């Protein structure tokens, strides 16, 4: 023990800031049994993914013939499963390449749109004074409690009744391709806005007022302040939210099922996978590889951007 212990109220549940890591004394809370228990949990939690991962590299006959834990008795390694699910053009293959492109084509705009719109609204709430600002902000915050299930049916009607005919006539007139991407982007953007505005407002409102006042006095408009000061200063918060939103859209199934139309024209990977498990639930050589194709992007994000990822996730965990 290095520091003199201070008698602290044991029953207090107030977090006291200021205890540094160096100050913290190594306590031996972790006994041998605790170590064993945590090892068991870690293995249990990793094993299912590991089993699928191993299996995705095994030849079809092996996957269907014996368990992946017998890999040493029945060795075999192939990339054929991945080649087949991604690039094969035969009608019986999942043709995931197209859906992978769709997932990206959906997730990138569906991350950028709400991010920009929410940052603008958050700036207005934080730095433009107007009557009813507070009430309106609380109202938008409260919209988070509306589960998106509550909006799906009428939103689909609006889209098919107004948006689609409009989009088609514009597309025909200008001779540009159209698809259901647009309605998926809009749906994701709308569902993301309440949370995004709330989170970004928390951050943007804490930017020192003097910086903004000074720029305003110098004659900068709100537009200039927003682009030159707010965006650069709010980058960490924007990044956290962007990662959360990207993964949310990438992993989403419900919004895609309702708005994508279900064909390879616009449906994302998750929807294709759900379909495959329904129709070809026993073709494990395809399902294992297909599942990993969809997991690659989130796992890369997870391992490379873990800090932002955790922050974004904690902030957005009540979404949906």
């Amino acid at each position, binding site marked *: *023990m290095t520091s003199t*212990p201070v008698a602290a109220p*044991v029953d207090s*549940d107030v*977090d006291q*800031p200021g205890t540094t890591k160096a100050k913290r004394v190594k*306590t031996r*809370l*972790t006994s041998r049994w605790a170590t064993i228990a*945590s090892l068991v*949990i*870690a293995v249990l*939690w*990793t094993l*299912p*993914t590991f*089993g699928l991962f191993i299996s995705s590299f095994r030849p079809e006959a092996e*996957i269907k013939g014996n*368990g992946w834990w017998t890999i040493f008795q029945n060795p075999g390694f192939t990339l054929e499963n991945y080649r087949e699910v991604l690039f094969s053009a035969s009608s019986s293959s999942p043709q995931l390449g*197209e859906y992978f492109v769709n997932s990206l084509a959906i997730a990138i*705009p569906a991350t950028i749109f709400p991010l*920009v719109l*929410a940052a*603008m*609204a958050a700036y*207005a709430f934080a730095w*433009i004074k107007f009557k009813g600002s507070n009430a309106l902000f609380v109202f938008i915050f409260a*919209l988070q*409690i509306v*589960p998106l*299930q*509550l909006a*799906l*049916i*009428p*939103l689909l009607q*609006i889209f098919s009744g107004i948006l689609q005919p409009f989009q088609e006539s514009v597309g025909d007139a200008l001779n540009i*391709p159209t698809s259901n*991407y647009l309605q998926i982007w*809009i749906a994701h953007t*709308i*569902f993301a*806005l309440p949370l995004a505005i709330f989170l970004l407002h928390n951050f943007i409102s804490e930017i020192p007022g003097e910086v903004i006042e000074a720029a305003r006095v110098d004659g900068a408009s*709100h*537009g200039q302040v*927003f682009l030159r000061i707010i965006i650069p200063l709010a980058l960490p918060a924007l990044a956290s939210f962007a990662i959360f939103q990207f993964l949310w859209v990438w992993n*989403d*199934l*419900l919004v895609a*099922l*309702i708005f994508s139309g279900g064909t390879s024209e616009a449906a994302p990977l998750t929807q294709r*996978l*759900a379909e495959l*498990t*329904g129709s070809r639930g026993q073709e494990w050589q395809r*399902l294992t590889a297909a599942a990993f194709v969809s997991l690659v992007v989130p796992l890369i*994000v997870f391992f490379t951007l873990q800090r932002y990822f955790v922050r974004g996730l*904690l902030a957005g965990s*009540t979404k*949906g």
Partner: protein
Amino acid sequence: MRTSDLIEKIVQVGIGLAVFAAVIGLILFLADKAPKKAKDVVQLVVFLAPAIILLAIGLIYPAIRTSILAFSNKAGDLIGFDNFVWIFTQPDAVRTVTNTIIWVICVPLISTMVGLAYAVFIDKSRGEKVFKALVFMPMAISFVGAGIIWRFLYDYRGADREQIGLLNQIVVWLGGEPVKWLQTEPVNTFLLIIVMIWIQTGFAMVILSAAIKGIPTEQVEAAQLDGTNSWQRFTNVTLPGIRSSLVVVITTISIATLKVFDIVRTMTAGNFDTSVIANEMYTQAFRANEPGRGAALALVLFVLVLPIVIYNVRVLRSQKEIR
């Protein structure tokens, strides 16, 4: 995939992004050029209007419409509470509601308990980061991906063949007969619940671990000097110290569990008595052409989620005030 398809898709995304950038750039530019007198109002409108309009069209109006729809039949006539009567009397629909309740009891409780135990066990141990990443990883995976991972684990083969699903292999090793797990009611609901627990435990663990590290060292040391054992320290120091985080974790997981859809959809599609409200809502509204029933189920979901969200927000607020 043909190259022309790929190009077409890239073009669409490009056009989408370009139009969006052009519109935003244009309105910001025009707001700058507005006459001096009206400038502030114009700028305010420019910043707020896009978000407000989208929310009004895409969330507020639809939520009101759905609420009305919940009291209507297929033809659109108001029929009072018939849809709700259906939910709470039809055996299948009742089953859906009971299943949802089982989910919302089991998942938050077990994942919080396991997550907390794990967080305490690995606290300040060697390789804590790796341990954390292993259990937290499922959080990054889509529910659909998780569904496939676990369907593989639950896979069934006749007793005369080699098992490829780990669970049935373990049963066989123990001398039992393989079981069609996902079709065997009521165990199948619990097997689906395990998937959700598998995902949410990492979330509980990360938050609770951060909370544990926030407990002042002095309190732990004082308790140690008093000669307490680690279990006493856990119940008297750790638990009170992380109470508010515990509440946040449990409520957050409860909300996520109430809305669970993808897992059920991927693993059983709600068959074999495993359906839950969010899945049934989708089935009724978009598959069975019963928008009224679907809307009623969505409304029930809203009513169930509402108190938890409000409680969660209040705890978060009071936590902020303390800081």
